[in-house]
Protein backbone atom coordinates (compact mmCIF):
# COMPACT_ATOMS: atom_id res chain seq x y z
CA UNK A 1 0.00 0.00 0.00
CA UNK A 2 2.84 2.37 0.56
CA UNK A 3 4.29 1.65 -2.83
CA UNK A 4 1.80 3.85 -4.63
CA UNK A 5 3.37 4.92 -7.89
CA UNK A 6 1.86 8.36 -7.60
CA UNK A 7 5.17 10.09 -8.00
CA UNK A 8 6.09 8.19 -11.13
CA UNK A 9 5.33 9.47 -14.56
CA UNK A 10 2.34 7.66 -15.94
CA UNK A 11 2.88 5.04 -18.62
CA UNK A 12 0.33 6.08 -21.19
CA UNK A 13 -1.44 3.94 -23.74
CA UNK A 14 -0.48 4.17 -27.37
CA UNK A 15 -2.44 6.69 -29.38
CA UNK A 16 -3.88 3.95 -31.61
CA UNK A 17 -5.40 2.09 -28.70
CA UNK A 18 -8.96 1.12 -29.55
CA UNK A 19 -9.87 -1.88 -27.47
CA UNK A 20 -9.16 -2.66 -23.84
CA UNK A 21 -9.96 -6.17 -22.69
CA UNK A 22 -9.87 -7.58 -19.21
CA UNK A 23 -9.06 -10.92 -17.66
CA UNK A 24 -9.39 -11.56 -13.95
CA UNK A 25 -6.56 -13.27 -12.12
CA UNK A 26 -8.41 -14.69 -9.17
CA UNK A 27 -7.44 -16.61 -6.12
CA UNK A 28 -6.90 -16.51 -2.38
CA UNK A 29 -4.29 -14.33 -0.70
CA UNK A 30 -0.73 -15.48 -1.27
CA UNK A 31 -1.45 -17.65 -4.28
CA UNK A 32 0.67 -15.51 -6.61
CA UNK A 33 -1.80 -13.18 -8.32
CA UNK A 34 0.45 -10.14 -8.18
CA UNK A 35 3.47 -12.22 -9.18
CA UNK A 36 1.56 -13.43 -12.21
CA UNK A 37 0.49 -9.91 -13.13
CA UNK A 38 4.02 -8.60 -12.69
CA UNK A 39 5.42 -11.34 -14.93
CA UNK A 40 3.17 -10.29 -17.78
CA UNK A 41 2.67 -6.60 -17.32
CA UNK A 42 4.57 -4.01 -19.30
CA UNK A 43 4.34 -1.61 -16.35
CA UNK A 44 4.95 -2.25 -12.69
CA UNK A 45 1.65 -3.49 -11.28
CA UNK A 46 -0.57 -0.63 -10.21
CA UNK A 47 -3.20 -0.77 -7.58
CA UNK A 48 -6.40 0.94 -6.69
CA UNK A 49 -7.61 1.20 -3.16
CA UNK A 50 -11.20 0.18 -2.81
CA UNK A 51 -13.29 1.12 0.13
CA UNK A 52 -15.84 -1.49 0.95
CA UNK A 53 -18.71 -0.52 3.13
CA UNK A 54 -20.62 -3.55 4.20
CA UNK A 55 -23.85 -3.71 6.03
CA UNK A 56 -23.34 -6.06 8.91
CA UNK A 57 -24.49 -9.43 7.74
CA UNK A 58 -24.46 -11.75 10.67
CA UNK A 59 -24.33 -9.50 13.70
CA UNK A 60 -27.74 -7.92 13.46
CA UNK A 61 -28.43 -8.54 17.10
CA UNK A 62 -26.05 -5.80 18.13
CA UNK A 63 -28.69 -3.16 17.75
CA UNK A 64 -27.37 0.30 18.17
CA UNK A 65 -23.81 -0.73 17.56
CA UNK A 66 -22.20 0.45 14.34
CA UNK A 67 -24.00 -1.32 11.58
CA UNK A 68 -21.42 -0.80 8.89
CA UNK A 69 -17.89 -1.97 8.54
CA UNK A 70 -15.51 -0.21 6.24
CA UNK A 71 -12.60 -2.15 4.80
CA UNK A 72 -9.97 -0.98 2.39
CA UNK A 73 -8.75 -3.48 -0.14
CA UNK A 74 -5.90 -2.94 -2.56
CA UNK A 75 -6.59 -4.31 -6.03
CA UNK A 76 -3.51 -4.97 -8.13
CA UNK A 77 -3.65 -4.81 -11.86
CA UNK A 78 -1.38 -4.61 -14.84
CA UNK A 79 -1.56 -4.31 -18.57
CA UNK A 80 0.05 -5.77 -21.63
CA UNK A 81 -0.22 -4.29 -25.10
CA UNK A 82 -0.98 -7.12 -27.51
CA UNK A 83 -1.17 -5.20 -30.74
CA UNK A 84 -1.06 -1.58 -31.72
CA UNK A 85 -4.75 -1.15 -30.93
CA UNK A 86 -5.49 -3.94 -28.45
CA UNK A 87 -4.46 -3.94 -24.80
CA UNK A 88 -5.02 -6.70 -22.25
CA UNK A 89 -5.55 -5.79 -18.60
CA UNK A 90 -5.10 -8.29 -15.81
CA UNK A 91 -6.97 -7.59 -12.59
CA UNK A 92 -5.98 -9.43 -9.47
CA UNK A 93 -9.19 -10.31 -7.72
CA UNK A 94 -9.51 -11.54 -4.16
CA UNK A 95 -11.60 -14.63 -3.73
CA UNK A 96 -13.52 -13.98 -0.55
CA UNK A 97 -17.25 -13.82 -0.63
CA UNK A 98 -17.24 -10.72 1.54
CA UNK A 99 -15.71 -8.84 -1.38
CA UNK A 100 -18.55 -9.84 -3.67
CA UNK A 101 -19.71 -6.29 -4.54
CA UNK A 102 -16.17 -5.45 -5.49
CA UNK A 103 -15.93 -8.67 -7.43
CA UNK A 104 -19.06 -7.83 -9.38
CA UNK A 105 -17.75 -4.39 -10.24
CA UNK A 106 -14.33 -5.60 -11.34
CA UNK A 107 -15.67 -8.52 -13.32
CA UNK A 108 -18.05 -6.44 -15.41
CA UNK A 109 -17.03 -6.88 -19.03
CA UNK A 110 -14.24 -9.35 -18.29
CA UNK A 111 -13.55 -11.99 -20.92
CA UNK A 112 -13.01 -14.61 -18.26
CA UNK A 113 -11.01 -15.52 -15.21
CA UNK A 114 -7.85 -17.42 -14.55
CA UNK A 115 -8.02 -19.01 -11.12
CA UNK A 116 -4.64 -19.53 -9.49
CA UNK A 117 -4.40 -22.50 -7.19
CA UNK A 118 -1.77 -23.51 -4.64
CA UNK A 119 -1.75 -27.26 -4.11
CA UNK A 120 -0.58 -26.76 -0.52
CA UNK A 121 -3.82 -24.93 0.20
CA UNK A 122 -6.37 -26.29 -2.21
CA UNK A 123 -9.24 -25.62 0.16
CA UNK A 124 -8.54 -21.90 0.00
CA UNK A 125 -9.61 -21.93 -3.63
CA UNK A 126 -13.07 -23.38 -3.16
CA UNK A 127 -14.64 -20.06 -2.29
CA UNK A 128 -13.31 -18.24 -5.33
CA UNK A 129 -14.33 -21.03 -7.68
CA UNK A 130 -17.81 -20.97 -6.18
CA UNK A 131 -18.03 -17.23 -6.69
CA UNK A 132 -16.98 -17.48 -10.31
CA UNK A 133 -19.38 -20.29 -11.05
CA UNK A 134 -22.23 -18.33 -9.50
CA UNK A 135 -21.36 -15.37 -11.70
CA UNK A 136 -21.41 -17.58 -14.78
CA UNK A 137 -18.06 -16.30 -15.90
CA UNK A 138 -15.96 -18.76 -17.89
CA UNK A 139 -12.66 -19.66 -16.30
CA UNK A 140 -9.58 -21.81 -16.38
CA UNK A 141 -7.58 -23.08 -13.44
CA UNK A 142 -3.81 -22.69 -13.27
CA UNK A 143 -1.84 -24.48 -10.60
CA UNK A 144 0.96 -22.19 -9.51
CA UNK A 145 3.90 -24.53 -9.08
CA UNK A 146 5.52 -23.49 -5.84
CA UNK A 147 8.78 -25.36 -5.38
CA UNK A 148 7.74 -27.22 -2.26
CA UNK A 149 4.16 -27.84 -3.26
CA UNK A 150 2.93 -31.37 -3.72
CA UNK A 151 2.35 -32.49 -7.31
CA UNK A 152 -0.95 -34.16 -8.01
CA UNK A 153 -2.26 -35.98 -10.98
CA UNK A 154 -4.64 -33.74 -12.95
CA UNK A 155 -7.52 -36.13 -12.34
CA UNK A 156 -6.98 -35.91 -8.61
CA UNK A 157 -6.94 -32.12 -8.72
CA UNK A 158 -10.01 -32.00 -10.90
CA UNK A 159 -11.77 -34.22 -8.49
CA UNK A 160 -10.72 -32.14 -5.47
CA UNK A 161 -11.74 -28.91 -7.12
CA UNK A 162 -14.87 -30.45 -8.61
CA UNK A 163 -14.12 -29.04 -12.04
CA UNK A 164 -16.27 -29.41 -15.10
CA UNK A 165 -14.46 -31.69 -17.58
CA UNK A 166 -14.36 -28.79 -20.04
CA UNK A 167 -12.67 -26.39 -17.66
CA UNK A 168 -8.99 -26.21 -18.56
CA UNK A 169 -6.56 -27.16 -15.82
CA UNK A 170 -2.96 -26.18 -16.46
CA UNK A 171 0.18 -25.70 -14.43
CA UNK A 172 2.18 -22.53 -14.51
CA UNK A 173 5.06 -20.77 -12.84
CA UNK A 174 3.62 -17.37 -12.03
CA UNK A 175 7.11 -15.85 -11.99
CA UNK A 176 7.74 -16.80 -15.58
CA UNK A 177 6.24 -14.68 -18.34
CA UNK A 178 6.14 -17.47 -20.92
CA UNK A 179 4.46 -19.81 -18.51
CA UNK A 180 1.95 -17.14 -17.51
CA UNK A 181 1.16 -16.45 -21.17
CA UNK A 182 0.59 -20.16 -21.73
CA UNK A 183 -1.98 -20.19 -18.94
CA UNK A 184 -3.80 -17.25 -20.53
CA UNK A 185 -3.67 -18.97 -23.91
CA UNK A 186 -5.38 -21.98 -22.34
CA UNK A 187 -8.08 -19.69 -20.96
CA UNK A 188 -8.71 -17.80 -24.19
CA UNK A 189 -8.69 -21.01 -26.23
CA UNK A 190 -11.36 -22.29 -23.86
CA UNK A 191 -13.40 -19.11 -24.35
CA UNK A 192 -13.23 -19.57 -28.09
CA UNK A 193 -14.05 -23.26 -28.20
CA UNK A 194 -16.57 -23.44 -25.34
CA UNK A 195 -18.55 -20.22 -25.44
CA UNK A 196 -20.55 -19.97 -22.21
CA UNK A 197 -23.95 -19.79 -23.88
CA UNK A 198 -23.22 -23.04 -25.69
CA UNK A 199 -23.01 -24.80 -22.35
CA UNK A 200 -25.94 -23.89 -20.15
CA UNK A 201 -25.95 -26.02 -17.03
CA UNK A 202 -28.91 -28.32 -17.54
CA UNK A 203 -28.44 -29.15 -21.20
CA UNK A 204 -27.18 -32.70 -21.52
CA UNK A 205 -24.02 -32.64 -23.58
CA UNK A 206 -24.84 -30.24 -26.35
CA UNK A 207 -23.06 -31.41 -29.47
CA UNK A 208 -19.70 -29.73 -29.96
CA UNK A 209 -20.55 -27.73 -33.02
CA UNK A 210 -17.36 -26.12 -34.15
CA UNK A 211 -15.59 -29.45 -34.29
CA UNK A 212 -12.57 -28.39 -32.25
CA UNK A 213 -12.15 -31.35 -29.93
CA UNK A 214 -10.20 -29.46 -27.31
CA UNK A 215 -12.24 -29.56 -24.13
CA UNK A 216 -11.49 -32.59 -22.08
CA UNK A 217 -7.94 -33.06 -23.26
CA UNK A 218 -6.60 -29.81 -21.90
CA UNK A 219 -5.79 -31.09 -18.44
CA UNK A 220 -2.40 -31.13 -16.99
CA UNK A 221 0.22 -30.36 -19.54
CA UNK A 222 -0.53 -26.84 -20.63
CA UNK A 223 2.05 -25.26 -18.39
CA UNK A 224 5.38 -25.29 -20.06
Amino acid at each position, binding site marked *: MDSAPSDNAATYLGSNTQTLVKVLVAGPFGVGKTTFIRALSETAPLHTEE*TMTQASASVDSLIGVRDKVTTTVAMDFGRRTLTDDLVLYLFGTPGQRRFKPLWEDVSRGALGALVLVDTRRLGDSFEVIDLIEESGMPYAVAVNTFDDAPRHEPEVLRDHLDLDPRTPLVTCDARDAGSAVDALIALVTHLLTDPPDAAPEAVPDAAPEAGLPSGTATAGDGGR
Partner: protein
Amino acid sequence: MSGRRSERRLVPAYMATGGRAAPSRNTFDRLTLLSAAGGPLPGRLAPAQRRLAELVNGGPLSLAEAAAYLVLPVSVVRVLVADLVDLGVLHARAPVPRAEQHDPRLLERVLSGLRAIR
Protein backbone atom coordinates in the same frame (compact mmCIF):
# COMPACT_ATOMS: atom_id res chain seq x y z
CA MET B 1 3.91 14.25 -10.58
CA SER B 2 5.86 16.78 -8.56
CA GLY B 3 6.78 15.34 -5.20
CA ARG B 4 3.34 14.50 -3.97
CA ARG B 5 3.36 12.33 -0.91
CA SER B 6 2.22 8.80 -1.34
CA GLU B 7 1.08 8.52 2.23
CA ARG B 8 -2.35 8.77 3.66
CA ARG B 9 -4.29 11.59 2.16
CA LEU B 10 -5.23 14.44 4.45
CA VAL B 11 -8.49 15.18 2.74
CA PRO B 12 -11.01 12.33 2.72
CA ALA B 13 -11.53 10.87 -0.71
CA TYR B 14 -15.17 11.86 -0.92
CA MET B 15 -14.19 15.52 -0.67
CA ALA B 16 -12.52 15.20 -4.06
CA THR B 17 -15.99 15.09 -5.54
CA GLY B 18 -17.46 17.83 -3.42
CA GLY B 19 -19.25 15.19 -1.42
CA ARG B 20 -21.09 13.56 -4.30
CA ALA B 21 -21.07 9.80 -4.24
CA ALA B 22 -22.44 9.02 -7.67
CA PRO B 23 -21.40 10.15 -11.13
CA SER B 24 -23.86 12.01 -13.32
CA ARG B 25 -24.17 8.86 -15.40
CA ASN B 26 -23.48 5.26 -14.67
CA THR B 27 -21.60 3.97 -17.64
CA PHE B 28 -17.98 4.20 -16.65
CA ASP B 29 -16.04 1.01 -16.36
CA ARG B 30 -12.59 0.53 -14.90
CA LEU B 31 -11.41 0.19 -18.47
CA THR B 32 -13.23 3.21 -19.85
CA LEU B 33 -10.67 4.77 -22.15
CA LEU B 34 -9.91 8.36 -21.18
CA SER B 35 -8.32 10.88 -23.49
CA ALA B 36 -7.98 14.63 -23.47
CA ALA B 37 -10.45 16.59 -25.54
CA GLY B 38 -7.73 19.14 -26.26
CA GLY B 39 -7.92 22.83 -25.78
CA PRO B 40 -7.20 24.85 -22.65
CA LEU B 41 -8.56 23.68 -19.30
CA PRO B 42 -11.40 25.72 -17.84
CA GLY B 43 -10.14 28.02 -15.11
CA ARG B 44 -12.54 26.89 -12.42
CA LEU B 45 -11.79 23.23 -11.96
CA ALA B 46 -11.74 21.71 -8.50
CA PRO B 47 -8.27 20.49 -7.52
CA ALA B 48 -9.07 16.81 -8.05
CA GLN B 49 -10.69 17.55 -11.40
CA ARG B 50 -7.62 19.49 -12.43
CA ARG B 51 -5.25 16.71 -11.40
CA LEU B 52 -7.22 14.21 -13.46
CA ALA B 53 -7.40 16.54 -16.46
CA GLU B 54 -3.66 17.20 -16.30
CA LEU B 55 -2.88 13.50 -15.96
CA VAL B 56 -4.90 12.60 -19.04
CA ASN B 57 -3.47 15.53 -20.96
CA GLY B 58 -0.26 13.49 -21.07
CA GLY B 59 -1.92 10.71 -23.06
CA PRO B 60 -4.72 8.14 -23.01
CA LEU B 61 -5.26 5.98 -19.95
CA SER B 62 -7.87 3.61 -18.60
CA LEU B 63 -10.00 4.90 -15.74
CA ALA B 64 -8.42 2.35 -13.38
CA GLU B 65 -4.94 3.58 -14.23
CA ALA B 66 -5.99 7.17 -13.65
CA ALA B 67 -7.34 6.15 -10.23
CA ALA B 68 -4.08 4.37 -9.40
CA TYR B 69 -1.90 7.30 -10.44
CA LEU B 70 -4.07 9.79 -8.58
CA VAL B 71 -4.32 7.49 -5.54
CA LEU B 72 -8.08 7.93 -5.52
CA PRO B 73 -10.76 5.25 -5.29
CA VAL B 74 -12.28 4.15 -8.58
CA SER B 75 -15.69 5.31 -7.38
CA VAL B 76 -14.35 8.84 -6.92
CA VAL B 77 -12.65 8.89 -10.29
CA ARG B 78 -15.91 7.84 -11.93
CA VAL B 79 -17.49 11.00 -10.58
CA LEU B 80 -14.58 13.14 -11.71
CA VAL B 81 -14.64 11.63 -15.19
CA ALA B 82 -18.33 12.38 -15.52
CA ASP B 83 -17.68 15.99 -14.46
CA LEU B 84 -14.88 16.44 -16.95
CA VAL B 85 -16.80 14.82 -19.78
CA ASP B 86 -19.71 17.15 -19.02
CA LEU B 87 -17.31 20.09 -19.13
CA GLY B 88 -15.92 18.97 -22.47
CA VAL B 89 -12.45 18.42 -21.02
CA LEU B 90 -12.24 14.63 -21.41
CA HIS B 91 -13.38 12.06 -23.90
CA ALA B 92 -14.48 8.77 -22.36
CA ARG B 93 -14.89 5.74 -24.62
CA ALA B 94 -16.19 2.27 -23.92
CA PRO B 95 -13.30 -0.20 -23.57
CA VAL B 96 -14.59 -2.38 -26.37
CA PRO B 97 -16.06 -0.52 -29.35
CA ARG B 98 -19.69 -1.42 -29.93
CA ALA B 99 -19.00 -3.18 -33.20
CA GLU B 100 -16.60 -5.55 -31.48
CA GLN B 101 -18.65 -6.35 -28.42
CA HIS B 102 -20.12 -9.61 -29.62
CA ASP B 103 -17.55 -10.37 -32.21
CA PRO B 104 -15.76 -13.69 -31.73
CA ARG B 105 -12.90 -12.27 -33.72
CA LEU B 106 -12.03 -10.18 -30.68
CA LEU B 107 -11.10 -13.36 -28.80
CA GLU B 108 -9.15 -14.55 -31.80
CA ARG B 109 -7.21 -11.31 -31.82
CA VAL B 110 -6.49 -11.68 -28.12
CA LEU B 111 -5.33 -15.25 -28.69
CA SER B 112 -3.01 -14.39 -31.54
CA GLY B 113 -1.71 -11.42 -29.58
CA LEU B 114 -0.86 -13.72 -26.68
CA ARG B 115 0.84 -16.20 -28.98
CA ALA B 116 2.91 -13.38 -30.42
CA ILE B 117 4.30 -12.33 -27.03
CA ARG B 118 4.96 -15.85 -25.88
